């Protein structure tokens, strides 16, 4: 009963390994390469022939002239693409409350006049540490600060925010979100066209 199963075990293990471990990923890679080359390779944002980021991976921003993203718990630096991580802090952990307070202080320091309540996603760390988005409310909260730092009218910044806002899928699935890197890239581009 034992020995007669050795050959089927070895043969079937080997063949299924080739099919599921080699042919299957190759087939998916082939389809990705033919039909979804951009997505399969990381949805890169290219400026002047150079990759300046990915639409799907957030970057760290703390300059007042840029929109800021979620807090990032990756080590050793925030938004470290090579090592995704959440904070994993529990809801009562003092370190969590301190991180929230520090973020609130930073937001207030950069924009002392703003007395609006701060959207919660702007003071909490994302699950991946690489979240490319913030909520539409979190973007709206920052419009005044960004406009002032850049010396442009808040209306222009608001219209750019709207341009980079994606609604819920079919109106029901997901959340209204703003792509932070895309928005900041466009802000820089906007400024350049003005000054030139």
């Amino acid at each position, binding site marked *: 009963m034992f020995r007669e199963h050795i050959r089927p075990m070895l043969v079937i293990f080997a063949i299924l390994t080739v099919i599921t471990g080699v042919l299957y990923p190759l087939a998916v890679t082939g389809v990705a390469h033919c039909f979804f080359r951009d997505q399969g390779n990381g949805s890169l944002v290219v400026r002047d022939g150079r990759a300046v980021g990915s639409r799907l991976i957030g970057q760290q921003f703390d300059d007042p002239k840029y929109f800021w993203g979620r807090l990032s718990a990756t080590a050793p630096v925030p938004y470290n693409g090579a090592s995704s991580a959440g904070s994993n802090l529990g809801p009562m952990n003092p370190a969590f409350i301190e991180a929230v307070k520090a973020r609130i202080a930073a937001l207030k320091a950069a924009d002392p006049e703003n007395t609006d309540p701060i959207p919660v996603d702007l003071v909490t760390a994302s*699950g991946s540490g690489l979240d490319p*988005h913030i909520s539409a409310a979190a973007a709206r909260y920052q419009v005044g600060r960004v406009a002032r730092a850049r010396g442009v009218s808040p209306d222009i910044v608001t219209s750019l925010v709207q341009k980079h806002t994606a609604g819920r899928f079919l109106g029901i*699935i997901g959340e209204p979100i703003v792509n932070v890197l895309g928005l900041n890239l466009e802000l820089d581009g906007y400024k350049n066209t003005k000054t030139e």
Partner: protein
Amino acid sequence: MTWSAIIHIIVYIAALLVFVKLLGAYMARVYEGRPCGIDTFFGPIERMIYRAAGIAPERGMSWKEYAVAMLLFNIAGIVVVYLLQRFQGILPVNPQALPAVPPDLAFNTAVSFATNTNWQSYGGETTLSYLTQMLGLTVQNFVSAATGMAVLVALIRGFAQKQIETIGNFWADLVRSTLYILIPLALILACALVSQGVVQTFKHSEKVALLQAGHGITEQVLPLGPAASQVAIKQLGTNGGGFFNVNSAHPFENPTPLSNFMEMLAILLIPAALCYTFGVMVRDKRQGWALLAAMLIIIVPCLFVCAGIEQKGNPLLNGLGVDQRWSAAQPGGNMEGKEARFGIAGSAVWAVATTAASNGSVNAMHDSFMPLGGLIPLWLMQLGEVIFGGVGSGLYGMLAFVIIAVFIAGLMIGRTPEYLGKKIEAYEMKMASLIILIPPILVLIGTAVAVVVPQGKGAVLNAGAHGFSEILYAFSSAGNNNGSAFAGLGANNFFYNIALGLAMFIARYWLIIPILAIAGSLSRKRTVPVSQGTLPTHTPLFVLFVVMVVLVVGALTFFPALALGPIVEHLMLYGH
């Protein structure tokens, strides 16, 4: 609870039910050897495999022979994954030049993937080479799922057959599950996921310049790799092991709300459809619907409760000028550890689905859930992974609970219990009791040991009751082959790697063997004709009775432990 979360949950359950009959009927055709539409392509491959292996697929095996074949194949899997990790440094397809994995971590990972648990003690981006991921983990994602399905089909044959000594051919069940069910579904899902932005390439990474340089760095490394092919099967096969460290929270594994929805659907797809397959194969579809109804009765309230608690947010943030209310412009709620694109509903539904099924992939950090929001996933695992559960393993676990239920019902009405015309006797009851008792023993004893040894206690991230929850969650996950974690627990040390590895091994194979024993015993029995005294097992009354048995066993066994963890934490949070 917001209207958007309510609609999200309803759409999710409705979409799931649409596929149940379709896929369930298809799988029944596959397992009964009837034409299923793609035989023209896969038939020759299947026959080639049988010829090369020298087996006759129609030759039935006794339950013991079936168990031997299953164990041989699974142990081979563990050995191969272990060796791949130990030698990846000198093997090809290792563009990041990663070194060999240490022995205790390699043991843990090998057991984890062979047992369909996919507990991840390692970090995806930084530990395993592409060769290990492909030839080791991806292969086990397929065959561990196929093993669960094969064992379930053997058990179903036990109910459906009369006076037959054999319960089917393990090799044929394994090959057919992989070729006709898992591969086609995974191909479709993987391509759909790539279209959303899940990466699929053999380039290992890309370097980009940061728009705002700071912290002494000017560049960001974007990790790439063949992720979509692994993500698809990790969801469909209730495996759950991520390509990247943060699993499906990573934007390259789960980039959009639509990809999130598809991946969530994939979590419950096969376990739900197998209920229908069961109904077809025992020639009474109502029996399959009854089991599906029992599962839905437990999962649906959990979806609403978990989403509601997370939406309510964290009371400690209320005095700080933070806006946690849901609005048309923001998700609000407890967003720590959650991604903006998924919000509360997309994260809470996932957390419930992934722990009801023994999937274990995560798209938000469960460790940062509110105390009672985290209690729901924890408790769903402790119910024994029978509310959908793993592919195959969830339904065979549920059938063990059904055997217990008909036995209790039989005692109440004073008749020999029977299910689907088969008498349930002392032997079946002993085996079913083993199946129900082993996981709680692993969870509770494992947790008890971990809270007294230094390596166990020292690994917690959050102090106090939450730290206890982290340990309880780890053993609940391993002892029920789920694989998700309260990831603050630094479980990559010698104690946890070995203890959790053993828990996963025992929880998988010491349950499969009694299941196969039941299959063999039932298969030999004659069928009792339906009489006036027969307890009908497709009625709402019986469905509720099964639900009660599952809940009473789960609640009574784990309530004291839950009281020390999430419940105490909740009271402290609101007692502040």
